[in-house]
């Protein structure tokens, strides 16, 4: 677990973001296997906050496979298969790595921003569950 924390620390130093040690440990403790992949996604600037003219928002997260997943803003929902399976069906996790990456990106100011039309935002919210690549 020391090597795990060193790996996190190296990633964060590379991206010039400092998370306090106790926060890192907290992330690992609560989110387990999602924590490191989520921090990877933040590091890679994979999270985009999408806004429409009315002020509706959604998040798009570019997965490691190159697939784009949609996460909702005001409740937990993600189009990735892990959300449907591990969170909803098995109740093994509170959230998937993409939702965690959204929270972390918001907290760390690492979201990209994109403005779209109302119709485009509706399409994004209707995006079907994606298969893992």
């Amino acid at each position: 677990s020391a090597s795990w924390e060193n790996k996190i620390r190296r990633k964060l130093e590379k991206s010039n973001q400092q998370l306090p040690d106790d926060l890192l440990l907290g992330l690992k403790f609560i989110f387990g296997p999602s924590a490191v992949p989520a921090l990877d996604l933040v590091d890679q600037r994979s999270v985009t906050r999408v806004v429409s003219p009315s002020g509706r928002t959604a998040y798009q997260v570019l997965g490691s496979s190159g697939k784009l997943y949609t996460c909702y803003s005001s409740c937990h929902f993600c189009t990735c298969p892990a959300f449907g399976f591990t969170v909803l069906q098995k109740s093994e996790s509170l959230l998937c790595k993409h939702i965690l990456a959204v929270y972390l990106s918001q907290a760390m100011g690492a979201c990209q921003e994109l403005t779209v039309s109302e119709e485009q935002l509706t399409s994004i919210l209707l995006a079907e569950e994606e298969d893992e690549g």
Partner: protein
Amino acid sequence: MAAALERALGPAGPEADASVPEAPLLVLGPAGSGRTALLLRAALAGGGDGPRALFLAPSAPSRLPEGGGGDPRALQRLELRYPPTLAALAQELGAMAARARPPGLLLLDGLEHYIQGGPSAPARLAALLLEASRAPRPPARLLAALRVPPPGPRVLPVLRRYFPAECRLRPLPGVPLRVNVRLVLPGSVPRGWRLRFEPHGGLNVTPGPGDGDGDEDEDGDGSGDEG
């Protein structure tokens, strides 16, 4: 929407608390148990001074309610729209968000009709509704109805993740047009009413038992009552 339901149906009886916390509310009941009538009554509660309400369903109800407490202004603040598909529903919700003054109540009838697609479909539908009720402006109260038995064994547990409050309609066996209503809120005592549907379209409401009368499988989903 839970508080609005209690306003619509009146005090639930001597064991009711003074206030019912607001929460997105799921209305469950078999065919013919009065889900649509209950939603419309909740929409019209408060008479002419109540909030504007948007009622969405796959098709028009067979009967519109008599005005809220006899106040014709109540019907004026009710908007009815009938998106036939999930895509059309999403567009209605998007259009709602774009209005200068979005409605204060959002009601969806016929959840079972809109659950289309893969295993995440119930979650996506619930999330779409929550999203529409919460953003971008001050939240609208949300009430949605599902006919039971649900269209699959995983539908109800998933919907319950998004709807903390639940209202179950149970027709009384052997007594036509009479329905028991039980409102379940987390951390709160269940509340109950009895409904009687009158031949001319009226609805008579009285406080009733909140304890579910000791029955099982209220949801009709094949599993025992999860309480």
